[in-house]
């Protein structure tokens, strides 16, 4: 087929998925059976043992780094918690393997959770530093608390599970178990990104601010991602200890954390396939490069820089990008899209208020960006917020959506006080918004962007995954983008990105939709289409609050206008009243100095 015309039905897509799952299972069974029944040399066995247990830990980094975009420079520390729990558990404390493994996983989870809870409010470089600190302190403890950890000598004679009459005591059988575990974890991590939690993580990664406003509890999502990552670190570490039956502190140093991180980045952090690829590659590479053993690590350091520069999304990311270039994305057949009920407020244009703002203020130092502003927006109207540059419109919108905390005043949405709520909680109450400088989740597909919007708290979409897809497609259809649903959002034109952002907000069936300069940067034709869209949305029963500089656009759609200047409300009323108000004219055209004589 030629580019751009491929049409796939939902049934065809489901078929592809099933084919993938079957292939995956077949490969899994074959590899596990191979490990189980083949007599491998001790050398190969050790390599595979290391690769499979490491890969499990590195999959943790896929979640925290690849999905949620948070750095973790302590994966070796979580790995060591699992390893030492199994190591000391099965020797010093005489526990069987499985309970010791569970202890390790739980310990890693707790450590990850506590670390995440305390540091993820800061993110970025701070997180890097906190994880390094944790890693360093734990390494010191492992080396120096000799009475517990046996110090630098390490732990010997670690036990394996004695289940099934000691079946797993054999190294080959144990390896088969580790590989099976890896396949299981890999499948779960693969599945995660298509779940609500996984999409929330990716939204946080791509644009944390927009994620919050769209209804994602960003802090909780990051903590969960970090904890899951630590959990997989502990799990991999526990299996590792059983596999090698000997562990020592130097196997879990900071530099090992860096190795884990490099594995995930080289392979491609956004896909578990890439992760496993990267892990195997970096374990095998030193074996292949044995002839330059001496300079191997230096070459490896250089390779890391080169990969970052030339393959920023890792090897797998590079391959999939190439694949996408050769295979155009699926198009949606028009018949698949059912119309969408946009709001539960239809037919309530009764003059009652959806938003009531009373004497709201937000100051930055001495600057009164928003100063005792009152605002009342009636149900099922289009309310425009205008004012010259720097008059506080966007600041007001940011206070309304919870990005800024007001210093005084009260915001009521649908008769309930939301002044103290976080952005995602307000989204949960039915507040949707777009941004002046478009904030989409740049590495996700168009439809995934919209799904994040549909999955806001308190918004139930019936029909599970299929229902959610239908709902998201319907939202895209309203703005006219349904045929681009599976494209990368970054490939859309500027005007289409604006529309995609509106669709994302619409998908959450907002009670009130805040649009921050939706017309900015659009050409004449696109602006006319926007006017048409906004009128249709109002017809569907939506309430819209719009900021725009284009008076022509505002006049065409606004039922009510509020004018701000220097943070204060200077006029409020119908378009006819407001646009003739001398104060408004003065604010826009400059003060006329009547009778100025001095």
């Amino acid at each position, binding site marked *: 087929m030629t580019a751009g015309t491929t049409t796939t039905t939902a049934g065809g897509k489901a078929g592809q998925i099933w084919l993938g799952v079957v292939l995956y299972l077949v490969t899994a069974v074959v590899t596990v059976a191979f490990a189980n029944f083949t007599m491998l040399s001790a050398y190969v066995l050790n390599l595979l043992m290391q690769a499979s247990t490491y890969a499990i830990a590195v999959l943790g980094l896929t979640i925290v780094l690849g999905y949620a975009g948070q750095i973790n420079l302590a994966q070796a520390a979580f790995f060591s918690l699992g390893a030492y729990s199994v190591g000391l558990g099965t020797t010093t404390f005489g526990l069987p393997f499985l309970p010791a493994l569970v202890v390790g996983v739980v310990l890693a989870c707790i450590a990850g959770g506590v670390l995440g809870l305390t540091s993820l409010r*800061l993110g*970025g470089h701070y997180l890097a*530093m906190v994880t*390094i*600190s944790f890693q360093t*302190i734990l390494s010191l403890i492992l080396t120096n608390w000799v009475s517990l950890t046996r110090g630098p000598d390490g732990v010997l004679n670690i036990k394996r599970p004695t289940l099934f009459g000691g079946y797993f005591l054999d190294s080959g059988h144990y390896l088969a178990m580790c590989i099976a575990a890896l396949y299981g974890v890999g499948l779960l991590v693969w599945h995660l990104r298509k779940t609500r939690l996984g999409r929330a993580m990716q939204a946080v990664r791509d644009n*944390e601010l927009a994620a919050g406003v769209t209804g994602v509890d960003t802090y909780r999502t990051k903590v969960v991602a970090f904890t899951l990552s630590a959990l997989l670190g502990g799990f991999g570490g526990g299996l590792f200890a059983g596999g090698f039956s000997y562990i020592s502190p130097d196997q879990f140093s900071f*530099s090992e954390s860096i190795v884990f991180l490099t594995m995930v980045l080289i392979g491609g952090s956004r896909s578990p396939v890439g992760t496993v690829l990267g892990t195997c590659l970096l374990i095998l590479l030193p074996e292949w490069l044995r002839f330059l053993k001496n300079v191997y690590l230096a070459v490896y350091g250089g390779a890391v820089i080169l990969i970052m520069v030339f393959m920023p999304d890792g090897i797998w990311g590079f391959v999939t990008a190439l694949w996408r270039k050769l295979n155009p994305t699926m198009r949606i057949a028009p018949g698949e899209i059912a119309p969408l009920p946009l709001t539960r407020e239809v037919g309530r244009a009764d003059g009652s208020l959806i938003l009531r703002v009373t004497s709201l203020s937000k100051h930055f130092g001495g600057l009164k960006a928003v100063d005792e502003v009152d605002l009342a927006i009636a149900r099922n109207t289009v309310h425009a917020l205008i004012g010259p540059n720097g008059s506080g419109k966007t600041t007001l919108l940011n206070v309304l959506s919870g990005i800024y905390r007001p210093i005084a005043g009260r915001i009521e949405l649908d008769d309930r006080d939301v002044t103290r709520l976080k952005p995602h909680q307000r989204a949960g109450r039915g507040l949707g918004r777009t941004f002046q400088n478009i904030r989409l989740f740049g590495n996700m597909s168009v439809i995934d962007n919209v799904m994040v919007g549909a999955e806001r708290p308190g918004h139930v979409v019936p029909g599970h995954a299929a229902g959610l897809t239908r709902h998201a497609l319907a939202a895209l259809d309203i703005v006219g983008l349904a045929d681009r649903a599976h494209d990368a959002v970054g490939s859309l034109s500027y005007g289409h990105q604006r529309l995609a952002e509106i669709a994302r907000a619409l998908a959450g069936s907002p009670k009130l939709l805040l649009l921050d300069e939706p017309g900015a940067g659009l050409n004449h034709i696109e602006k006319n289409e926007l006017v048409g869209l906004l009128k249709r949305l109002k017809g569907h029963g939506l309430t819209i609050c719009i900021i725009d500089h284009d008076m022509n656009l505002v006049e065409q759609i606004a039922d009510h206008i509020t004018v701000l200047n220097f943070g204060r409300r200077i006029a409020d009323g119908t378009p006819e009243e407001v646009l003739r108000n001398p104060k408004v004219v003065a604010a826009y055209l400059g003060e006329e100095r009547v009778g100025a004589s001095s």
Partner: protein
Amino acid sequence: MGFALQLLFTGIGVGSIYALVALGFVLIYRATNVVNFAQGDFAMLGAFAMIVLAVDLGWPYWLSILITLAVLVLFGALFNLGVYYPLRNRSFLPVIISTIGASILLENGVLVAYGPQPQSLPGLFASQGFNIGDVFFDSQYLLILAVTIVVVTFQYLFFERTLIGKKMQATSQDKEMASLLGIPVALMIMLTFAYSAVLGGLAGILVAPVLFVSVGMASSIALKAFAASIIGGFGDVTGAIVGGLALGVIETFGAAYISVPYKDGFAFLVLFVFLLFRPQGIFGERIAEKA
């Protein structure tokens, strides 16, 4: 009392090293918004260059220092071109990883050349130092202190009084605006890297006679310096100096009064406490993302 004063002196000496490296961190961070994880490697390179020149080749000490610093200027510029510049428009994560890659490359390159056994570099002065009362003033620590004071003063004058210093400041505050005003932003960032490399190298040269010169010195110094800059307030020049000195003193006292094996842990424990209760550090301000 004498013992405590002795510890204070040593702590400030060690802390000065952290402060110098931390300054390099902060300058690069301010110019590029990126944390350079290879900052400690600049110090390692400085120390090893001295081993090559002053010990292996037997050149005069002063000449070796000058050549080392000149080499580091060049190296800083190259580092900028190879590690930062190609990734300048990307998020901080790829750049961090790239600097980590550079650090692996450098440390293992030196390891190939010199092997794992630590080298030792003699001090600049023949005299070990002198006593005042109970306190022994080690000549190398005195030198470290003196150089730190000179560098900090020089840096202050450079950034506040010279045009090029002001251009570098402008670049770090607003790249777009700076470039609109005709400031060659890429060149300013290159200069920042070169100067940071010199700061790191200087720290390495100064600390080499006190410690053994080894590949491992890079990461231990870098981590402490990074911790110091966060304690002081990340991105703040005064903070980097104060944080570095504080960390040196805390560590020295901790090792003397609490535990030697956990000496390296105190820095991170203090850092941990700071991150939890005052993440903006001593001098830093809270930064929020603008919508």
